[in-house]
């Protein structure tokens, strides 16, 4: 297990939740001594990050026995968000216990696996995956009539969730990330143009489009979306990626760039940002307030007129409100305050992005009130950045309003370095 040292600032934004508490660790003195040896201390904390990006700590205390005599395992959660799904915590704790047993002479990790198998035989036992019935999948027939989007869906599994994407063209991947509350369909006008110059990959975020939709609120977090996209990129082994992203696609995509910088070749953020907790636009705050009062979102996508079929294509993923948890939660997950853990994570990501040489092309819809202020801040982050391209008569859903034009400008920039 790889231990980390979180900053005091990060810890100040998280709440520590004791998960396992051993009052008398030295009920097995041999185990206590082996753990002391493995960690190199008798009292203190060792932190690690799990495969779910959760932060944990093992805290040892010496209550006067001359050896570690008390132990606590903490999980650190976002202060303003619910605890993540229990099966993620179980899986993380289980991995920790395997490590723990591995550090001792008298315990065998294999016995822990055996005990877990036994425990799984009964209801309420150790469950390392999603609870049955906690994931919805939109029926295929809802996607039978998609004007302008005739690509065969492909699927990959991420953490037990089916993640859908479409592909077109060949060459270096062009990854297109949609935002709230749309899905890959929003890129239908851009795919034909960009698939001429590369392999277009358009995933649906978890909770959207044809991807699986966990029902519970706490399945969704800023971190989780980033993790799912990161794992998606690794699952498809995408390299030399040109990232095109809008709205939440950027909030997620830009942070993922900071986590996997070597896999990205170009960045095209459109009507998006990487909020650091300062200065959200009034328009966003109004949207946030509005959205958090809704039980179902049925927005008009784009500033132009959609045909009824196109409108239905945006509605297709959500047969009912139960399917829309991700969409309803999204506005709440935008870090709007400096002490939001997501804001801290973004500040860390921004520092990383500032060091990168990856060329960036910021694009803004002239009529987008939500992210128009963010574009200049965004531009300031990148070293190697083109002037902001402002698209006339385009609003927040720029792909819908001016998809072809935007796609052509991007192709131009990819070829010549200017848009």
């Amino acid at each position, binding site marked *: 297990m790889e231990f980390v040292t979180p900053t005091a600032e990060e810890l100040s934004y998280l709440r520590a939740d004791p998960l*396992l508490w051993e009052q008398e660790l030295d*009920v*097995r003195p041999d185990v206590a001594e082996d753990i002391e040896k493995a960690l190199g201390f008798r009292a203190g904390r060792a932190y690690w990050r799990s495969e779910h990006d959760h932060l944990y700590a093992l805290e040892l205390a010496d209550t006067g026995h001359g050896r570690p005599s008390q132990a606590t395992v903490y999980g650190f959660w976002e202060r303003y968000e619910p605890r993540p799904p229990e099966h993620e915590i179980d899986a993380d*704790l289980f991995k920790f216990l395997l490590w*723990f047993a591995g550090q001792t002479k008298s*315990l*065998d990790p294999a016995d822990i696996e055996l005990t877990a198998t*036994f*425990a799984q035989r009964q209801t309420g036992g150790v469950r390392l995956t999603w609870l049955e019935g906690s994931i919805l999948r939109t029926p295929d027939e809802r996607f039978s009539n998609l004007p302008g989007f005739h690509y065969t869906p492909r699927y990959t599994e991420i953490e037990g969730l089916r993640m859908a994407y479409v592909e077109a063209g060949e060459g270096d991947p062009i990854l297109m990330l949609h935002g709230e509350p749309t899905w890959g369909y929003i890129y239908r006008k851009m795919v034909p143009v960009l698939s001429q110059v590369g392999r277009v990959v358009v995933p649906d975020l978890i909770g959207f489009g044809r991807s699986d939709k966990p029902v519970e609120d706490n399945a969704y977090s800023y971190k989780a979306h980033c993790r799912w996209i990161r794992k998606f990129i690794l699952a498809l082994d995408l390299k030399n990626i040109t990232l095109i992203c809008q709205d939440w696609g950027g909030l997620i995509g830009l942070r993922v760039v900071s986590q996997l910088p070597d896999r990205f070749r170009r960045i095209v953020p459109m009507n998006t940002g990487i909020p650091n907790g300062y200065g959200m636009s009034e328009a966003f705050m109004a949207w946030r307030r509005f959205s958090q009062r809704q039980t179902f979102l049925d927005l008009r996508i784009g500033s132009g007129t959609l045909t009824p079929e196109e409108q239905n294509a945006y509605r297709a993923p959500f047969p009912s409100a139960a399917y829309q948890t991700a969409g309803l939660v999204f506005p709440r997950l935008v870090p709007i305050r400096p002490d939001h853990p997501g804001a801290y994570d973004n500040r860390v990501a921004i520092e990383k992005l500032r060091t990168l040489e990856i060329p960036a092309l910021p694009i803004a819809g002239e009529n987008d009130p939500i992210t128009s202020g963010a574009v200049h801040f965004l531009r300031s982050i990148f070293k190697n950045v083109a002037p902001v391209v402002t698209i006339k008569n385009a609003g927040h859903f720029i792909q819908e309003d001016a998809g072809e034009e935007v796609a052509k400008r991007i192709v131009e920039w990819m070829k010549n370095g200017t848009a």
Partner: protein
Amino acid sequence: MPRELKPKPAWMKPVFPWEQHALTVNGRTMAYIDEGQREGRPVLLLHGNPTWGFLYRDFVEPLKKAGYRAIVPDWIGAGFSDKPRIDSRYTLAHHIADLVSLMDQLKLRGFVIVGQDWGGPQGVGAALQRVERLSALIMMNTWLFTGLVGRFHASPRPWTTWHAPLIAQFFMKRHKVLSQAGPTLTSKKGLTQTEARAYHYIYDEPESDHIVLTWPRTIPMKEGDRGFADMLHIEKRLPELKDIPTLLLWAPEDNVFTIEYAQRMKELLPNAEGPILFDKAAHFLQDDRGPDLAKSSIDFLNRTVGAAIKG
């Protein structure tokens, strides 16, 4: 004053109708049922891990009918008794002291100890403190000695791993593997939904099942283990019980206290009757063969000490 006991849920009453009383023992509230005639011979029915007095539900009415006084306590940490989360509260010596306190406060004379699993050493340990008032012993799938460690308790797979530091917190506390699965999965007869629920209910609340974890941790397997000296003490004093009528009732299909344990009991208590063997029963034999065990026990008691207390 003992605290007020948590009320029994309505669904439990048909299978466990008896009124629960409370007493303060060593500063904690102990719950027990006390049925039958006051003048009848007290029969203390003692459960083990991870059960509670419910285990003896088939004994209460037959004992009452035969003129005995059935007393079924829940050990501190179990059943409806207090459940402090203090590891060091739960050693063999503590449990013994708790039962002695109950015996003294109820002024029991000529009592009978019936014990299974931890009910054995904890009951006999207490009886040895008040040996002049002990009249008979009935032991079922338990042990009273060091030295013999059966395969179940010795095996790292999975028993000793279950209660290892932190690992036990995960399996036994976070997932309640033993308290939820123990009696339900072990039963040969199969428990009804209500019976299973009665066992689960008692350890449902967070932190309520601490004893489920401390009991296995105090199984004295080698010198230096917590409780080893206490168990050795009991073992050494067993000869004092040679004139006490003793009966062994055993489920040979139990893989925890196998028939080797019964043989060792017989060596240490040579005057004991039995073991009478009960098939179709596992570790929680009272669940599987309750009425038969009650009948054998009453027959034995009628034959040896009787329901009436002399003098």
